[in-house]
C-alpha cells in the first residue's frame, strides 16, 4: 500500500488535466447558455466562434513573436488575446446584424435559429480553414512548467511526481477571473440585471423599457469574449487544431444541458462534471491500483474503462441520460421545446 504515491499519480494524470479541461469547457458552456438565455436558441456556431477568435489570437501572437515582443515567462498569446477577442466580437456582431437579426425580426422558431447557426458554423469553419489552414498550429511559448514531475519528486521524496504546466495554471486562473467578472456583471450592474430580466421574461422586460437590441448586443459581446478566451486557453493547453472545435461542441452542449440551460452557475458545474467524467473514465488505473494493492502486485489489464478514442462518448452518454432523467439540468433551467 502506498496511498501517497497513488494520490500523486491520480492528481498528475486525472485531477490536474481535468481541472484545466473543465475550466475550458465551463467557459464554452457559459457562452452557449448565455445565448440560449437571451436569444433562446442552441448556438451550434459557438465552437467555431471559439476557433475563429483563437485563430485571430494566434495570428497576432505570431506577429508579436516576429517583432520580438515577449512577456516571458508568460505566453505571448495572453498579450494577443485582447485583439483576438475584439476580432471575435466584430465577427459575432456582424453575423448577428446580417444573419440572426433577420430571423429575430421574423420571430422565427428557435429550431430555425438553431439550423441557421449550423450554417453559420460551416461559414466560420470555412473561413478559418481558408485563413490559417486545417493543420495543427503551436503557438505556446514562455515557461512550460511551473512544477515538473522531477522537481515534485525531489521535493517530496515520492516516486510519482505531479507536473503542473504553466498553461494549466493560466487556464484555471484566467477562467475563474473571467467567470468572476461575468457574475459580478450579471449580479451587480444595471446592464447585467437587465440581461437577467430579459432572459427571465422578455415581454415584461419590454414593458420595463429594456432595449432588446442592446441586450442582444451585450450578449454577443460577452459570448465572443468567453469563446475566444476558452479557445485560446484550450489551444495553449493542447494545441490549436481547427477540426477539434466541431468535436468540442458535444462536451460543451452536454455541460450546458447538464447544468441547466440558461443557468450560468450550472454551465460551470456542468463543465467540470463532464471534464472529470471524461478523464476519469478514460484513465488506465493499472498503476494506481498497483500502488494501493499488496507489494509487487499489479492488475493484469490496463483497468481502463473506456479507450480515449471514446472520450466523446462520455459526453454523449451524459447528454442522453440528463435529457431522459432530468431535462431541466442540475440547476432548474429552461427545457428546449
Amino acid at each position, binding site marked *: 500500500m502506498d496511498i501517497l504515491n497513488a494520490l500523486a499519480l491520480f492528481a498528475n494524470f486525472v485531477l490536474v488535466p481535468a481541472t484545466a479541461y473543465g475550466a475550458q469547457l465551463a467557459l464554452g458552456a457559459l457562452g452557449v447558455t448565455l445565448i440560449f438565455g437571451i436569444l433562446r436558441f442552441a448556438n451550434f456556431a459557438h465552437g467555431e466562434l471559439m476557433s475563429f477568435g483563437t485563430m485571430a489570437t494566434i495570428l497576432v501572437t505570431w506577429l508579436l513573436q516576429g517583432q520580438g515582443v515577449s512577456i516571458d515567462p508568460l505566453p505571448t498569446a495572453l498579450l494577443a488575446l485582447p485583439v483576438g477577442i475584439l476580432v471575435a466580437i466584430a465577427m459575432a456582431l456582424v453575423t448577428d446584424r446580417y444573419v440572426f437579426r433577420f430571423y429575430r425580426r421574423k420571430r422565427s422558431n428557435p429550431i430555425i435559429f438553431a439550423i441557421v447557426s449550423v450554417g453559420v458554423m460551416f461559414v466560420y469553419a470555412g473561413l478559418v480553414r481558408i485563413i490559417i489552414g486545417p493543420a495543427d498550429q503551436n503557438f505556446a511559448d514562455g515557461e512550460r512548467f511551473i512544477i515538473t514531475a522531477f522537481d515534485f519528486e525531489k521535493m517530496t521524496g515520492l516516486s510519482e511526481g505531479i507536473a503542473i504546466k504553466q498553461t494549466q495554471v493560466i487556464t484555471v486562473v484566467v477562467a475563474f477571473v473571467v467567470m468572476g467578472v461575468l457574475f459580478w456583471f450579471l449580479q451587480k450592474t*444595471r446592464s447585467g440585471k437587465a440581461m437577467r430580466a430579459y432572459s427571465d421574461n422578455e415581454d415584461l422586460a419590454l*414593458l*420595463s423599457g429594456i432595449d432588446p437590441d442592446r441586450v442582444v448586443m451585450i450578449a454577443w459581446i460577452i459570448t465572443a469574449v468567453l469563446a475566444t478566451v476558452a479557445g485560446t486557453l484550450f489551444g495553449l493547453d493542447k494545441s490549436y487544431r481547427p477540426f477539434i472545435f466541431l468535436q468540442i461542441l458535444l462536451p460543451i452542449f452536454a455541460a450546458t444541458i447538464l447544468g441547466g440551460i440558461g443557468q450560468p452557475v450550472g454551465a460551470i458545474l456542468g463543465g467540470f462534471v463532464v471534464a472529470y467524467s471524461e478523464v476519469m473514465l478514460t484513465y488506465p488505473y493499472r498503476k494506481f491500483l498497483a500502488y494501493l494493492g499488496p507489494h509487487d502486485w499489479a492488475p493484469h489489464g490496463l483497468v481502463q474503462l473506456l479507450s480515449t478514442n471514446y472520450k466523446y462518448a462520455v459526453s454523449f452518454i451524459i447528454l442522453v441520460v440528463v435529457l431522459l432523467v432530468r431535462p431541466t439540468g442540475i440547476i432548474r433551467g429552461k427545457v428546449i421545446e
Partner: protein
Amino acid sequence: MKFLSALDMTGGYGGADIIEHCDITVEKGEIAVVVGPNGAGKSTAMKAVFGMLQLREGSVVLDGRDITHMPPQDRVHIGMAFVPQNHNVFVSLTVEENLEMGAFIRDDDINDTMEQVYHLFPVLKEKRNQPAGELSGGQRQQVAVGRALMTKPKLLMLDEPTAGVSPIVMDDLFDRILEIARTGIAILMVEQNARQALEIANHGFVLVQGQNRFTDTGKALLANPEVRRSFLGG
C-alpha cells in the same frame, strides 16, 4: 378631453375585430374600471390602449398627445405603465431587482420611489432580497404593481390585478390602488371582481362583445338595476 382618451377604438388580432367603437377614458387621480363578461374584449381594450394591438379605427390620446401609432416600448417613456395579468414579475430576480428593473428607463436617483413602494407594500421591504418567484400570489401582485410604479407613471394600467388571490388580499390590494390614485396617478383597471372594483371606481365601463354597453360612475353602475341583473349577479 380627459387625461387619457381612447376613443372609437376598433381592431383585433388580424382577423375579425374584437373591439368595436370602444371608448375608454380616465382622468388624473381617478380610477376607471373596465368590467364585463368573459370574452367581452376587456383585456383586448387594455392592450389597444397600450399599443399592443393594431387599431383599424379610433385614436388614443394621452395628455393631449396623439399616441395611436406609438409602439408600446415608447409609451413607457411618456408615463404609461402596464401590469399584465400573467407573468408580471421577473421570477428569478429578487424583489428589489424587480423594482430596479421597473425603473430601468430612469437615470435619476430611484431610492425615493423605492421607499414609496416599500411604504405602500411593507411586506416587500421584508422580502426585498428574496426571488419574486418564491412569493405568494398576492405578494407577487404587489411586486408587479410596485415594478410598474417605479417608472413614476402618470397612467397605471392593471390587467386583473386580483386574479387568483384570496378575498382578503383582494380588499387589501384595492385599498392600495385607491392610495395610489390619491397621489394623482390615473388608474385604468380591468377586473373580474366587478362589484368590488366598481365600489372603488370613479368611472366604470361595461363592455359586451367588444362594445361599450354602459358607461357611468362606479356608484351609478352599481345602482343600475340592469347592470346589477346582467353583470353583478342581482
